[in-house]
Structure formats: structure tokens, C-alpha cells
């Protein structure tokens, strides 16, 4: 029973990592840049839905909608102001800018909402939790919703990228931005759309992260963001199913490491596993190995 309980807690934590990792992998897969500010867009999504649902007392679902709109707009703005002018620069420059944006968002949130942590009311508060084996095993409604959301978003994204015209443009930009431009694809707007979608996903991830682990601070997105980035690399960055697989595995490994090896080492073990996976399979679990042509 202890094993099953840990497994469920692992999947529950992992599904949160997975949903954040989806945004990372999407932006990296297409724009080839690591958007380190992703974790902080998640935090903004959490705060916006908190303001709508808890402070203003409106319907939490409306809160999610507003959060998605605000984060999408925020994502487009960040891209326009901070990343687009640097599109021709070295990738390191953009990476440093992303870290700058991350700080900017954290400190702006600190100014607006203050340093005091807030407790987030789950969007599915009051929904029944699943009870198995006479209540010995409890699966919270948040976990069920997060896993479902992961699956839906994953399928929707894969379909979108493979079945629509914009998706086709995205794949083209991802493969070779230069050639895509020659073929008449607007590379800039394609990348902007990618950011818009990634940031919209961040809002949903923020709502689900805060529903499962209900404290909200300006730094809330930072550590889960890094773990989710790890998950995306683990699963194969750029691969959408890889992000989900990586996230869930990372969550399970983290919980098992805590439960069976000791709480003191769990992070060390998580990252040791990552190193081993990357040594054996450098492109991650589901990543494609693309040899560099010289």
C-alpha cells in the first residue's frame, strides 16, 4: 500500500512538472531558445487567477480564462520587447535576456502583490476525491484534473502541429528558419504565435500548480520551472510526448527517492538519474538525435 501511495503521489507531482514542461518544450522545439522566464509566467498566471477567484470572488473558471488571456498577452509582449530584437544574436545573449526577464517578472510581482505568500484556493475545491481500497488510497481531484489536462493538451498540441497550416509553418521554422523564410513563411510571426501558445499553457500550468500545492509567492514558479525544464530535457527537449513522460517520471523518481532512500538526497538522486539518462541517450528519452552536418 505504501508503494502504491508513493506512486500516486509521484504521478501527482510529476503531472505538474509535465504540464509546465510542455510549455518549455514547445518554445524550445520551435524557436530553439530556452525561455527561462517560463516559470515566472506560470507565477503570473497563478496570481491573476488568484485575484479573480479569491480576491474578487468570481468564478474560478473565469479566473483561468483571464489568466490565459493575460499570460498570452504577456508572452507576446515579452517576445516582442526582449527576444525579437535579439533574434540574430548568439543564443547565449537570448538566454541571459530570458534570465533578466525572469527577474523582472519576479520583482514586478513582488511590487504588485507583496512578499507575503498567499494561499491559493484550488480551482476544483469541493470536487470529490477518488478513494480506493476503502479509503486507504486517496487520489485528489487536483491530480486527476492535472493528468487529464496534460493528456488533452498533449494531444491537442500534437494535432495542432501536425494537422494545421500554422503547425506546418512551425515545423518548418523549427527545421530551418532560413529555408522557411525563403518559402514565404513569416518566421517572426510564427515564433510569436509559439510564444503566445506557450504562455497560454503557462497560465493553465500555474493554475494547476497552485491548486495542487497551494502557496503563491513571487518565487513560486522558479523551482518548479527548473524541475520542469529538467523534465523536458529528460524526456527529450522539443518532443511533446517526451515532456509529459519526462515530467511524470521525474515526479515518480523524486518521490521514490524521498521515500526509500531518504529525504536528504532526493534532489541529488533526481539529477543523478538525469545525468545517467543523458550519458546513455544524449537527446533524452524520446528526443530525436540530429547529427550536426559540417
Amino acid at each position, binding site marked *: 500500500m505504501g508503494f502504491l501511495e*508513493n506512486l500516486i503521489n509521484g504521478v501527482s507531482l510529476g503531472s505538474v512538472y509535465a504540464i509546465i514542461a510542455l510549455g518549455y518544450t514547445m518554445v524550445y522545439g520551435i524557436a530553439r531558445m530556452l525561455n527561462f522566464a517560463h516559470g515566472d509566467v506560470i507565477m503570473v498566471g497563478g496570481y491573476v487567477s488568484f485575484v479573480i477567484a479569491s480576491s474578487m470572488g468570481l468564478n474560478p473558471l473565469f479566473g483561468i480564462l483571464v489568466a490565459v488571456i493575460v499570460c498570452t498577452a504577456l508572452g507576446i509582449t515579452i517576445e516582442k520587447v526582449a527576444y525579437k530584437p535579439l533574434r540574430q544574436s548568439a543564443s547565449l545573449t537570448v538566454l541571459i535576456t530570458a534570465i533578466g526577464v525572469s527577474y523582472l517578472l519576479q520583482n514586478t510581482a513582488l511590487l504588485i502583490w507583496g512578499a*507575503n505568500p498567499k494561499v491559493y484556493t484550488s480551482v476544483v475545491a469541493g470536487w470529490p476525491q477518488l478513494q480506493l481500497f476503502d479509503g486507504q488510497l486517496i487520489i485528489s481531484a487536483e491530480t486527476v484534473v492535472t493528468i487529464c489536462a496534460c493528456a488533452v493538451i498533449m494531444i491537442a498540441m500534437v494535432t495542432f502541429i501536425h494537422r494545421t497550416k500554422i503547425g506546418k509553418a512551425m515545423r518548418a521554422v523549427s527545421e530551418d528558419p532560413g529555408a522557411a523564410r525563403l518559402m514565404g513563411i513569416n518566421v517572426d510571426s510564427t515564433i510569436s504565435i509559439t510564444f503566445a501558445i506557450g504562455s497560454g499553457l503557462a497560465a493553465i500550468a500555474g493554475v494547476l500548480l497552485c491548486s495542487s500545492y497551494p502557496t503563491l509567492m513571487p518565487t513560486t514558479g522558479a523551482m518548479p520551472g527548473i524541475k520542469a525544464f529538467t523534465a523536458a530535457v529528460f524526456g527529450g527537449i522539443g518532443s511533446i510526448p517526451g515532456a509529459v513522460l519526462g515530467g511524470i517520471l521525474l515526479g515518480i523518481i523524486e518521490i521514490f527517492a524521498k521515500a526509500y532512500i531518504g529525504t536528504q538526497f532526493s534532489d541529488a538522486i533526481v539529477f543523478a538519474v538525469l545525468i545517467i539518462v543523458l550519458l546513455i541517450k544524449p537527446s533524452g528519452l524520446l528526443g530525436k538525435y540530429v547529427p550536426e552536418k559540417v
Partner: protein
Amino acid sequence: MSFTSLSRRGFLQAMGIAGTAGALTLAGCGSAPAQTEGTDSAEGGATTGAAYKLGGIGPTTGAAAIYGSACQNAIEIAVEEINAEGGAVTFEQQFEDDAHDATQSVNAFNTLKDWGMQVLVGTTTTAPAIAVSEEANKDNIFMLTPSASSTDVIGGQADADGNVTIQRKGNVFQMCFTDPNQGTASAKYIADNKLGTKIGVIYNNSDAYSTGIYNKFDEEAKSLGLDIVTVQTFTDDNATDFSVQVNACRDAGAEVVFLPIYYTPASLILTYANQIGYKPIFFGVDGMDGILSLEGFDTSLAEGVMLLTPFSADAKDDKTQAFVTAYKNKTGDTPNQFAADAYDCVYAVKAALEQGECTPDMSASEICDKLVKVFTDPTFEFSGLTGETMTWQDTGEVSKDPRAVIIQGGEYVSPENATDAASE
């Protein structure tokens, strides 16, 4: 109180600051503390030439901003009150932000020194306080920290092996309990009041504050015959999911779960415990203070939680009520114990300045010598918000009575006033 985390951001920040720190510190060295009277008026202070220059340091930005801001507000309130009285002692005060970073804190200290600081109330958090207390000791500037509770701040304490690694910094004193004292007091309280014999512990092993309390608690609990059935840890970077730790306490049959941690992770622990229907007595220390003012927190989750705290904003005495009202008028928030400690610091310094017959034209070093003499004088007693008839020892530690409160119906209640139903 200590906050440490070495995440990617923390690391980058540290690197960035380390780069500029050298230059700033060097720049600070050349200029001797200015003692000219009536220099530029400082924010919120009196501008008369005969005022003492009181410096404060604490994080007003960053993850620990809540603590520094509380201290800053409380110091301002205390200084305004004292200046309004117009007695022999008036203050001019300046507060510097250190973002809970040791390097920035030393820079803040140098800034205040250049300004002409004569007494330091700070720093607020432990890690910066350890660094700043070294400087304050070197420069012989009197330092009274409201809330940096590690023994490394005052120095001179033997570690588990009996070695004194940090020498006593003779001019550094604390208003709060030291971490070990909280651990010892908690174990004694649990044993004396027979709250339970099977104890589970969840502490933050990446945090000096939490670890310090746990170590002493462990020692004391063993000598009192309490059975620590499980010890679980987490780190700042891993403070999201507590399912494993809470499950372990439940599976080990812990009747009391000791949480020497801050209230933010504690709120997650209480939430998860409630979800799985586990109801031991949760016992916290001063870091737990503030859990009820968490915006959006369902206070019924904290029902029956006990904690040791020197200050409760709900206390009915006039002194507390007046302070709470003043603080609410100024900030709109209820003050926490950090604010109360900082407020007491200013008044304790005032009382000591009077007793030591200091004058504002003395140098920081002269004032420091006099204040140290007063503070270590057994007849010097101070009564404030966080305790009655407090005294200080040569070690820099304060002696005051720890007080336990139990949370009932979303309020702090003294255990003797608590209704039995809720304490089960």
C-alpha cells in the same frame, strides 16, 4: 532567521553581486564614519542635530522581504513615538535593504557607517547577520538584532563537539531567542505538558535556523524520555511536495509532529495532512507565527496547532494593543513577531542609552562600550512587547520566558484558556 537557497537564480545573483561587492567595500573603507551633526536628513527621522543615528538592515525585497519590511515599519513607528515624546533621547533613523544576502548586507552596513550610524538594530535574517556582526564587532558599533536567532550571530557558543568555532562578538546582542533555546524549550514544553511521547519531526535541512532548532530539540527530547519515531527533512528547493514526509510521520505513529520551520511550508504540510485525515498535534516555533495571516489560508486547517512565540498580536494588554493599532494604521497589516522584536529593540536601545548616560555627540565606539556595559549589567531590565523583565547575559542571549499558544477558531489562545475539545 535564515533563508538559504542556492538555486540557479540565487547562484547567478550571488555571482553578479560578488562582482560589484569588492569595489563597493573598497570604496567604503577609506571614509571614516562621519560624526558631523545635522548632515542630510534621513528618511523618517528627526533632523535635529542632537539625535542618535540609528541604522537598520533587513530584506525589504526578495523572498524574505516580509521580515525586513516588518522590522523597518516597526523601527519607524518606535522612532516616531520616541521623537514625538521629545525626551533626552531622540533618533534619526535609516534603514537599508539587504535582500537577505550576506554580501549586500555588509554593503548596507558600510553605507550606514558612512552615514554616521551610532547604533545598529539589525540585521533581520540570520545569514546576513552572521556576516554583519563580524564587521560590527571589528568596528565596535553596538548591534542588537531583532530576529537573527543563530548562535553564530553572537558567537562564543560551543558546537556539538564542544569547540567554539566563532569567538564571542562582545558587542552583539539578540532580542529573539537563540535557535537552540527554542529547541530546548519546545522539548521541555512537550514533555511537561504530556502532549505525547511519540514525536515525529519534519525540518528544513538546508536552513541553519531549522537545523539548529532540530539539533537541540533532539538532544533535549532524548534526555526527557521522548521517543522521536521519525525524522524527515526537506530543502528550500524541494518545499513543494510533503506527501512522503507526512506519510512517514503517520506510518511511524507520531502523536506530536514537531515543525521547526517557517509557516509557508508548514501550511502545505497541514493541507496534505488534512487531505489524508492525519491529525496529530502539530507543534511549531516562532517561524510558524504568521500562518494565520496567510492570505487565503483556511485557518481551520491550523486548528489545534501549538507554537512557541514571544508575541501575539491578539494579546489584550495596552502596550500590545497600542502597537498593533499604530502598525495597522501605518501599513494596513497585523504586525508579526519580527515587528514586535524590532520595536522592542529600539526601546531597549533607548533605555540603555539613558541608563548609560550617553550623549549623541559621542562616537559610535564610545556609545558601544557604554551600551555593552549596560546590557551585561544584571540590573538592566527591559519590559516590552515580547516579554516582561528581559535581561541579557554576557553571551549576548536574551533571557525571557517562552510562551506557548494554541490555535483555536483562527486565533492564538493560551493553552490554559483553550477548550478541551479542540486540543484533542
